[in-house]
C-alpha cells in the first residue's frame, strides 16, 4: 500500500510537471461562452466566428503568440483571468476604473455607444424619465448593469440581470422585459435578426458617463503581465496602421468601430 502510494504520487508529480512544460507557451484567450453577434458567435461545428474572433486572430498573428480560444462563463471571467484559467480577455470588456483596480487593460480596440431597445409599440426615450416604471434587462457584470443601477433605478425602473446578453434579448422578445440596455452594435445585430426585427426597435443611445461606461473596449490582462501587455499594444497599433483592422472590420461594419 505504502509503495503504491509513493509510486502514484511520483507519477502524478511527473504528469503535472509535464503538463506545466507544455502549457507554458500558450496564451489562452477568454471570452463569454454565449452567442454575442456580431462579435463572437458559435457555429454548428463548434468554431467561433465574428469580428472579435478575427481581431484576436489578427493580433495573435501580429504579436506571434500561440493563442487558444477558451470560452468561459462571463460572470466568472475576471476571476478566471486572475486565477490563470485564461491569460487574456478579448470579449468586449470595457475599460472602467472599477475593473482597473483588479486587472489591467491594453489600449482600446473599439468604442461604441450604449443603446436601449424596446418593443415596437412602446414609445419612450433612453433617459431616466423615459424608463421610469419599466423593467430593464442587462447582462451581469457589465457597464450596462452599473449604468442602469446608477441612473435608471433611482428614477423608478426595475433592473433584471441575466447571465448572458442573449437571454436578455430573448426575454425582451418574449415580452418579459420593457427594455434592454447594451452595446449598440450587438443590439443592432439583434434588431436585424428575425426575432429582433419582429418585436423591437431602438429607442436611442444613453447619455455618456465615461466613469461608468468606460473609455472603450480593451484586452483584459493580469496586472503582472506587463510584457504581454506591451506585445498586445504593439500588435493593436500595427494592425491599425497596416490596414488589417480595416480589412476584417469591413466584413462586419460599414463604419469605423474604433470610435473616438
Amino acid at each position, binding site marked *: 500500500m505504502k509503495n503504491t502510494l509513493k509510486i502514484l504520487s511520483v507519477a502524478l508529480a511527473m504528469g503535472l510537471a509535464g503538463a*506545466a512544460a507544455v502549457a507554458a507557451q500558450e496564451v489562452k484567450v477568454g471570452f*463569454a461562452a454565449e452567442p454575442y453577434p456580431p462579435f463572437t458567435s458559435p457555429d454548428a461545428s463548434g468554431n467561433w466566428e465574428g469580428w472579435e474572433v478575427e481581431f484576436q486572430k489578427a493580433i495573435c498573428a501580429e504579436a506571434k503568440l500561440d493563442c487558444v480560444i477558451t470560452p468561459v462563463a462571463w460572470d*466568472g471571467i475576471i476571476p*478566471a483571468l486572475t486565477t490563470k484559467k485564461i491569460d487574456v480577455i478579448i470579449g468586449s470588456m470595457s475599460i472602467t476604473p472599477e475593473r482597473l483596480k483588479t486587472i489591467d487593460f491594453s489600449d482600446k480596440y473599439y468604442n461604441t455607444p450604449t443603446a436601449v431597445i424596446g418593443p415596437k409599440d412602446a414609445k419612450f426615450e433612453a433617459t431616466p424619465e423615459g424608463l421610469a416604471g419599466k423593467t430593464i434587462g442587462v447582462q451581469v457584470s457589465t457597464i450596462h448593469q452599473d449604468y442602469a443601477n446608477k441612473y435608471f433605478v433611482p428614477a423608478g425602473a426595475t433592473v433584471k440581470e441575466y447571465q448572458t446578453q442573449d437571454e436578455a434579448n430573448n426575454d425582451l422578445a418574449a415580452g418579459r422585459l420593457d427594455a434592454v440596455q447594451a452595446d449598440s452594435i450587438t443590439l443592432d445585430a439583434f434588431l436585424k435578426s*428575425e426575432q429582433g426585427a419582429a418585436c423591437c426597435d431602438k429607442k436611442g443611445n444613453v447619455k455618456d458617463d465615461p466613469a461608468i461606461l468606460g473609455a472603450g473596449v480593451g484586452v483584459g490582462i493580469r496586472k503582472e503581465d506587463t510584457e504581454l501587455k506591451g506585445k498586445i499594444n504593439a500588435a493593436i497599433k500595427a494592425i491599425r496602421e497596416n490596414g488589417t483592422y480595416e480589412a476584417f472590420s469591413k466584413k462586419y461594419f460599414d463604419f469605423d468601430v474604433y470610435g473616438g
Partner: protein
Amino acid sequence: MAADPGSLVNWSLLALSPPGWGGALLRGFVNSLQIAVGGYSLGLVLGIGGAFGKLYGGPILRDLMECYTTIVRAVPELVLILLLYYAGTDAINQLLTLVGFGSIDINGLVAGIFVIGVVQGAYSTEVLRGAIKAVPAGQIEAARAYGMSPTKVITRVTLPAMLPYAIPGLSNLWLIATKDTALLAVVGFSELTLVTRQAAGTTKSYLLFFLAAGVLYLALTLVSNVFIKMIERHARRGFVEQS
C-alpha cells in the same frame, strides 16, 4: 393558429453536420459522458478511501472524513462546483507554486472530473460505508483468523461481499453523476446543456434543442438502467429474494 408550426419543428437544425447542430450536441454529449465516467470513477476511488477511513481509521481521520462528507452533503452541488472550479483549482495552483512546480494548466475536462469526483466521493463514502457495515462480521473475522493480511481481507472478502449491498446506491450515484454534469454549464464548460443553450440561442429554436438534449439524457438513463439491472442480477445471485 397564430403559431407557425415550422418554427417548432425545423428538423434540419438537428442535422449531424453543419449547419445543423446535431453534431455539436453529440460532441457536448460525449463531453458530458467523459466527465461523468471520470468523475464517477474518481468518486469511487475517493469513496473507497473515505469508507475505509471512516470505518477503520483513527479518530482524527474519522473526524476529517466526517467533515468532508458533511460539507458535501450540506452544501448545494452548484455551490460546490463553483467552489472547486474557481477556488479549488486556484488553491491547487498556489500550492504547486509554493512547492516549486509552477502553476499548471488545468484544462476544463480535468477540472470538471475533479469537481464531480470530489462531490461523488462524499456520496460514495456514505454508500460504501453502509454496504461494508452490512457485510456479516463473521466473514471478516474468519478471514482474519485465517491470517490474511489486511489487503487480502479487503480484496478477497470485504469488497466482493459488500458489492450486492452497494450496487443500488452506487447505481443511483451513477445516474446522479450523469445529471450533475449539466451543472458544469454554469461555469462555462462545453457539455451538453451549455451547447444546447448556445445552439438554441443562436437558432432561436429553444423547445427543439432542449427537448433533443432531454432525449439524449433520457436515453443515457434508460441504457444505464438496463446495464444496472444486469449487474444487480449478477451480484445478487444466490441471495434470498427480499420483498
